[in-house]
């Protein structure tokens, strides 16, 4: 009886990952085939076989493919970070930004833009700002002793608000010529995504860690006392998860600005369908988050071409109806 139970779980896992994998491939393909310039599908396909017109090769290989890959990796990172935050804080309303990481990154980037340093500095200081914010929140929450998720959450919310105030101040007092670019970055912008190595490396590593960490996270989700009594080193695991989630979020925000909604909604949606086993939920979130953001970005740059919509608007418009539908169905 239990072998069929095990087999059923394995089958469900395989089926889920298979469907998501197919979705990932489909979303990447459609993103590469569509753009503000209409390229016939055959032309695009021939690029991958080493041929194709010069324009097609240029657009597909230099513009669309890097952007698609960046979108997929960023979406995956945000979804995984959201899942980790929800486990850490034992709160389904947590998202990657609730602990002020995006605020710190934004302040870092904004200061660089204002001081006129080169573009390469922007990514670096965004990352530094994210990590600084992580340390501040962690240090403050730790305070004089025990470190509960509630305390961490409250500290994070306050620090995030503090960063928000700093950002508003900087925008108001020194309106630099980079202002439009900065606003787009704050809304989330894949047009300026730089580099694919770091996001993909981070994504692969974090998904790789899902298996060994996953079961401990499942137990941790039941409460710190219950987890401790079942052999989980609760403090150490919570630190690890927090730092991992912060790192993952920092990489995502540095790549494409603060894209909202993905980190909150994707783990939720998946949980309604496949349950809360983190060993499946984390890789599935990576795939589903990548699919959502890739689709959203494709729409963002084609719907009103040659102009672009902010991608955060599209993720909301795509995600909300699907989520509501799943929620409705799961009532029964």
């Amino acid at each position, binding site marked *: 009886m239990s072998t069929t139970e095990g087999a059923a779980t394995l089958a469900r896992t395989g089926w889920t990952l298979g469907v998501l994998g197919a979705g990932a491939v489909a979303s990447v393909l459609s993103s590469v085939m569509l*753009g503000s*310039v209409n390229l016939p599908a055959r032309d695009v396909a021939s690029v991958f076989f080493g041929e194709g017109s010069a*324009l097609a090769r240029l*657009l597909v290989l*230099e513009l669309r493919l890097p952007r698609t890959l960046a979108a997929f990796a960023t979406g995956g990172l945000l979804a995984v970070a959201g899942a980790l935050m929800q486990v850490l804080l034992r709160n389904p309303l947590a998202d990657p930004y609730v602990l002020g990481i995006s605020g710190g990154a934004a302040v870092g980037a904004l200061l660089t833009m204002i001081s006129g340093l080169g573009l390469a500095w922007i990514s670096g200081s965004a990352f530094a700002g994210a990590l600084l914010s992580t340390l501040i929140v962690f240090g403050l929450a730790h305070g004089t002793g025990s470190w509960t998720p509630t305390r961490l959450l409250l500290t994070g919310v306050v620090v995030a608000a503090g960063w928000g105030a700093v950002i508003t101040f900087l925008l108001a007092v*020194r309106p630099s010529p980079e202002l439009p*670019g900065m606003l787009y970055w704050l809304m989330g912008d894949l047009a*300026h995504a730089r580099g694919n190595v770091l996001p993909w490396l981070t994504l692969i590593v974090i998904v790789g860690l899902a298996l060994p960490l996953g079961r401990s996270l499942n137990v941790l989700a039941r409460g710190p006392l219950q987890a401790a009594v079942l052999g989980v080193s609760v403090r150490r695991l919570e630190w690890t998860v927090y730092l991992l989630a912060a790192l993952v979020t920092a990489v995502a925000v540095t790549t494409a600005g603060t894209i909202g909604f993905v980190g909150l909604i994707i783990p939720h949606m998946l949980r309604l369908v496949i349950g809360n086993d983190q060993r499946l939920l984390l890789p599935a979130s990576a795939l589903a988050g990548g699919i959502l953001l890739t689709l959203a970005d494709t729409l963002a740059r084609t719907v009103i071409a040659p*102009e*672009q919509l902010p991608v955060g608007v599209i993720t909301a418009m795509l995600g909300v109806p699907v989520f509501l539908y799943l929620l409705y169905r799961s009532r029964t």
Partner: protein
Amino acid sequence: MPASPARSRPPRLWWLAVLVFALVLPQAAPAAGGGNISVSDDRGRSVELSEPAQRIVSLAPHLTELLFAVGAGDRIVATVAHADYPDAARSIPRVGTAAQLDLEGLLAASPDLVIAWGSGSPGTALERLEKLGITVYYSEPGDFAGIAADLRRLGRLAGQPERGVREARAFLNAVATLREEFGERPEVSVFYQVWDQPLMTVNDGHLIGEAIRLCRGQNVFGHLDSLVPRPGLETVIAADPEAIVSGGPGEDREDWLEAWRDWNQLTAVQRDNLFFIPPSLLQRHTPRLADGTRMLCEALELARERRAGPRR
């Protein structure tokens, strides 16, 4: 206008031909299409083309204007939203806005030269274009001389060097004329309004600030550090400028000036020194800046006349 290629001459005049050719060649080289065009842009970079650009993409409305001014309008294959002067510019295909470029469309237009706005065009996109080997010219004129320089350089890049030189000279002459007419006039304190919500103005370092100085206006916020300061309403009222000059939400809407009329303790309101100048004549770095500056100088002159006595 290619020079006639050297044809074989009878030997006795051969050395004459070489001499003539040696003298003519340097001036004719760009036109002959056989040599390099090399200019430096407003960032001090060296921009080189092997022949005049045939397919130009301009990344700001005022840059489109500059290109039309040097006779290169027909070579523009793509530009950005709001490029509306001259009328022919409206029909050029768009590739996004100045701040948010449509890179695909831009690349599909196969440009051999891209004119970018130093402070307005997105840096990462331009970086990517340069990495793909596309020649980019950054325009960022800070003063009247800078506009003239841009006219000359764009003329050379677009194969219209003499036209570029001519337009630059005409522009500088117009400015010089204004200096002669108004350069010795008594100062008038003035507030120039760039935007109303929030209230924005310019300081002395701004190009508009320079225009104000030329007309012997004294910008009440000229001393501030920021290029585009945002004073509070109280500060403007306290400064009590003699004249208020503003643009508007459109080329012919004087809404912002009307709003100032409510404050009738202001000198400018009492003397009706509220002057509207279409924004594109002062806020775009083009030859039309001379027209806008003329309007500004005449407005300030009117303000001086009104010092004498009650309103007409």
